Structure formats: C-alpha cells, structure tokens
C-alpha cells in the first residue's frame, strides 16, 4: 500500500489523461450525435439513410475494432498524423475513435427522446410556420434532451470506462489503465493495492456522474 501511495503522482497523471479523453470525446460525440439525430428525422431520404447506416454500422462494431482502425489503420498504416508529438497524436486518434463510436449511442438515446414528444406539438409548430430546422431546434430537441438526460448520463459513464480500450487497442495514451499496466509490468507496487486504487479512481469519477445526471434529469424534466 505504501509503495502504491508513493507513486500516487503516476495515478493522478493517468487519470488526468482519462478525464481529458472522456471530456473531449463526450463533447464531440454529443455534437456528432445531435447531427446524426437531426439527419435521422430529416425529410431528406438520403440524409436519413446515411445516418441510419452510420449508426447501425458503427454501433455494431466492437469499440476495440474502431480504435484499432484509427490507431493501426489510419494512424500507423496510412500515416495520417494529427500532432507532432506522439502523445498528442495518439490522444487525438483515441478521441476520434471514441467519439465516432459513442455518438451512435447518443443519437439512439436522443431518438428515443424524440419519440416521446407528442406529434401534435410538431404539427402545432409547423402550423405556426416554423421550418424543419426551427422545429427541431426550438421544439423537438430541447424536449428530447430533457427526457434523455439520465440515459445520456449512462452513455457518459460508459464512455469514461471505454477510454481504457484506447491503450489496449494500440493507441498508447497514458491514461489510467495503461499506467496501472505499467506499474504491474515494472513491479512498482504490489498488484492488489494498485488494482484496488485504480478501480476506486474510476468509481470516484463515475459515481458522482451518475448522481449528477439523475439529479439533473429530475430538475429539467418536462411536465406533461
């Protein structure tokens, strides 16, 4: 235990990468998720088809495969670099892979939220002369979002834990799990305290998220 605590800076450093990965991926998957949802409900068949194909395709692909494709495929094999420093290069590829994957789940949650909005409200908005995008922006998405705050919280928790797949899939971001592996490999601290320490670290991250999102979901709920 003491050996583990002596290396606490490694732990903190690992989790700081985990948090950066999770936050940036959350931001991008939210933006992409909203865009996919807007396409999914648009009156243009081509956009609907593209969105459906993307969501169904990427959602059904294991995250490891998606991240391997980003890391070994696009990054290494095709030689596409996003930063001059290796650490940030793999970091951005991990963000892209995680966002590409997580956006599907954001989109599916939002779509479920849209389905709870009575069609009559959409018709009322149309009959006032609102365009499709105004309808989506002012009436549909705000209500859909409030309905799916709790499921989106679960998506964020899953995303936070999924950041650990990046290093396993060959994107060597020095996030928490790869720090843990390093400490195991080099015998820096006994295995059990190290494992328990890192596991608790994830608990500290995700547990408040869960409470926060269920509080928020009650607070913003639309009364019908």
């Amino acid at each position, binding site marked *: 235990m003491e050996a583990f605590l002596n290396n606490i800076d490694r732990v903190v450093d690992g989790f700081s990468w985990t948090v950066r990965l999770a936050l940036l991926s959350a931001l991008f998957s939210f933006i992409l998720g909203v865009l996919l949802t807007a396409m999914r409900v648009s009156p243009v068949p081509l956009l609907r088809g593209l969105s459906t194909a993307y969501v169904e395709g990427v959602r059904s692909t294991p995250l490891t495969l998606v991240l391997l494709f980003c890391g070994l495929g696009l990054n290494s094999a095709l030689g596409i670099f996003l930063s001059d420093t290796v650490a940030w290069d793999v970091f951005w590829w991990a963000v892209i892979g995680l966002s590409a994957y997580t956006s599907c789940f954001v989109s599916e949650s939002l779509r479920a939220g849209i389905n709870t909005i009575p069609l009559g409200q959409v018709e009322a908005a149309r*009959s*006032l002369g609102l365009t499709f995008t105004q309808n989506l922006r002012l*009436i549909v998405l705000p209500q859909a979002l409030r309905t799916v705050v709790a499921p989106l919280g679960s998506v964020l928790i899953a995303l936070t834990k999924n950041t650990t797949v990046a290093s396993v899939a060959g994107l060597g971001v020095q996030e928490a799990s790869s720090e843990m592996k390093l400490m195991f490999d080099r015998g820096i601290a006994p295995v059990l305290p190290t494992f328990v320490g890192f596991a608790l670290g994830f608990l500290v991250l995700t547990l408040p998220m869960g409470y926060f999102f269920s509080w928020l979901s009650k607070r913003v709920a639309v009364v019908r």
Partner: protein
Amino acid sequence: MTSTPLVVLENVNKHFGDLHVLRDINMTVNSGEVVVVIGPSGSGKSTLCRTINRLETIGSGTITLDGEPLPAEGRGLAKLRSDVGMVFQSFNLFAHKTVLQNVTLGPTKVLRMGKGEAEARAMELLDRVQIGNQADKYPAQLSGGQQQRVAIARALAMNPKVLLFDEPTSALDPEMVQEVLDVMTDLASEGMTMVVVTHEMGFARRAANRVVFMADGQIVEENTPDEFFTNPRSDRAQDFLSKILTH
C-alpha cells in the same frame, strides 16, 4: 361583410390507402365568413380542415389561399402556414415553454418581431382570452379549457388570414366547453374568417354563416344554419340531426 373568396377548394380528393376520405370536395370560404363543418365520425371533416394548411397532403384537386395555390413544401409552405392559424383538439401547447413563450414563439421566430413587441401583443391576446394572469405558468399547470384558450391566443398572435379549428372542444370536460366557445363566438362576431369542425350545434346555430355537412368523404349539404337545422334537405343530414338533436 366582403365576399372575397379566401380559401377555395376545387375537386379535392384524398385516399388513405383504399379509403377514399375526401371525394370531389368543392368549397369556398369567403373573407370574414364563419363556416362550420359537421358530420358523423369518419366523414372526413377533420381531414378536410387539415388539408387547408397542408398538414394533410391531397391526392388531386387544388386548394388556394387568397388566390395562391398551396406550396408543396419548404419555405413557401412555412410562409403559407404562418397565414393560416390552427387550433387542435388536443391543444398541442409546447410543454417546455411557458404560456407567454407559447404565444410569442411564432411572432419572434417566424415573423421576426422584437421580443418586447411580441410580449406586449401576447399579453394583450392572453388578456383577451382571459388568461393573462397565467402567463408564466407551464401548460401542464392549466386546465384543458385554459390550455385551449392559450392555443387560440397562440394562433391569433400570427395575425392569420384564416383560423382553422379542428374539434376544439371535443377533448374538454363539459364545464370547460363554454369558455372556449365564448372566445370563438367573440372572434366570429369580430369578423375573423374561420373554418370550424365541431359537434357543438349550439355554436353552429349562433356563430356560423354557413354550415357544411359532410358524410363519407363528401359534402352532402351546405346551407345557412337556420335553414340547415330546421329544414335539412338530404336524408343523410336528417338522419344525423335526428340522432344528435333529440336528446
């Protein structure tokens, strides 16, 4: 009252699958006129009402508003809809917006009216339907009758050329029907052009210039309320009236 044709339907037909819901509908609504559409369930009267702002598309025929044919889609259609107010059976207020925001949304976002002006006008309309003191509440906090009056104010805020009412009192508790009908009667007497689908025969007698009786997707009879209720010509109308007026 002027008699300029405002809404004109010519040879309108519509199918829902095999069901022929609108059969060769020809109807003209003049400016300032109140037309009440009545008929048994499934006669196509709601569908007819909804075709006028193209919430339902039509199979064949033409519909014009103020001489212009209805645009098929896009911004032209949105513009047309802003000129045609609609009040629904189930109110359809925006649940995440306050009463005031429900009424100002159209004017600010569609007509690009300033917020202050839109709010002042909204308060005027809400006072007119006697609900100004509830402006900051959410729809779910109001009774059905109050919600429907807000919905009428919301439609009026767009200064529509014509107001469509699709069974506006059918979802209301009996004691709330009158407060909504009173608002509608006032509007009618002020010269608002209205198409009203309803089962409220009292309102039809009192406020309508003309009654259109529909059955099986057709307009069977069209007359002044007095003439229609005392002297229905078709068997279908006589049968319908005998069922609803005897008790």
